[in-house]
């Protein structure tokens, strides 16, 4: 395991951006030389869910407005952290009320899955921006 320089990715809030985010994650994870696939899959799952949530929220609230978001990936020996920042409207969400959808539901699992996969998930509105902080212990 190793630390690495933080990696920052800036993308438009489009569905295609999720593939870009995931490809960047793949490359970044390789630099960590961490073969713990459980941590990798849990962190990657949460990152994809939060990226999809940001894109879906931005498009629903603001349409194809040209908004974007950034992702910063960082690692220490103790944990890996991802910080998503976007300048869209407030996400208006209370993470303490999120529950996993019933097994016959076709949607409503994204945030619950992110919470289950991570050691911590935090959402704040900071200076007119939405900031999501995802942490997995290593």
């Amino acid at each position, binding site marked *: 395991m190793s630390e690495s320089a933080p990696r920052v990715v800036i993308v438009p809030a489009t*569905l295609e951006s999720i*593939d870009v985010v*995931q490809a960047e994650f793949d490359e970044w994870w390789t630099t960590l030389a961490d073969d713990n696939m459980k941590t990798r899959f849990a962190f990657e*799952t949460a990152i*994809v869910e939060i990226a999809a949530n940001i894109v879906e929220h931005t498009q629903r609230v603001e349409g194809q407005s040209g908004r974007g978001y950034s992702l910063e990936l960082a690692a220490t020996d103790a944990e890996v952290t991802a910080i998503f920042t976007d300048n869209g409207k407030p996400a208006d969400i209370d993470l303490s009320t999120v529950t996993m959808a019933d097994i016959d539901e076709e949607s409503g699992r*994204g945030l619950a*899955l992110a919470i289950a996969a991570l050691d911590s998930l935090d959402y704040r509105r900071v200076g007119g921006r939405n900031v999501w902080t995802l942490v997995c212990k290593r």
Partner: protein
Amino acid sequence: MTSIDVLIADAGGVVITPSGRLTVVTAPQLRTVVAEQIALGHRLIVVDLSSTEFVDSSGLGALVSCLKSARQAGGDLRIVAPTEQVAMVLKMTNLDRILQPRASVADALRD
């Protein structure tokens, strides 16, 4: 996702193999392919997940939707050989209760 392969099995049923990532970007393709096969009269839908590297909540939602469609048509949908990440999210979401993985395509095609 790079592709979704469709193979009509000799024993009856159809084997659908999504390769790569099954996410919000690509999940609609799986719904379309499964709907087409049900419309063609296939009742046993086998989704071979051995080449599916990654599934997100939209991909899971598509699998639930396809399972419901198959059952409403009087058939069934069975999944095969999920990879490590896919097995992890099936368990985290409790969907392994309704989408119980079979070890092989041959197992899934047998009653």
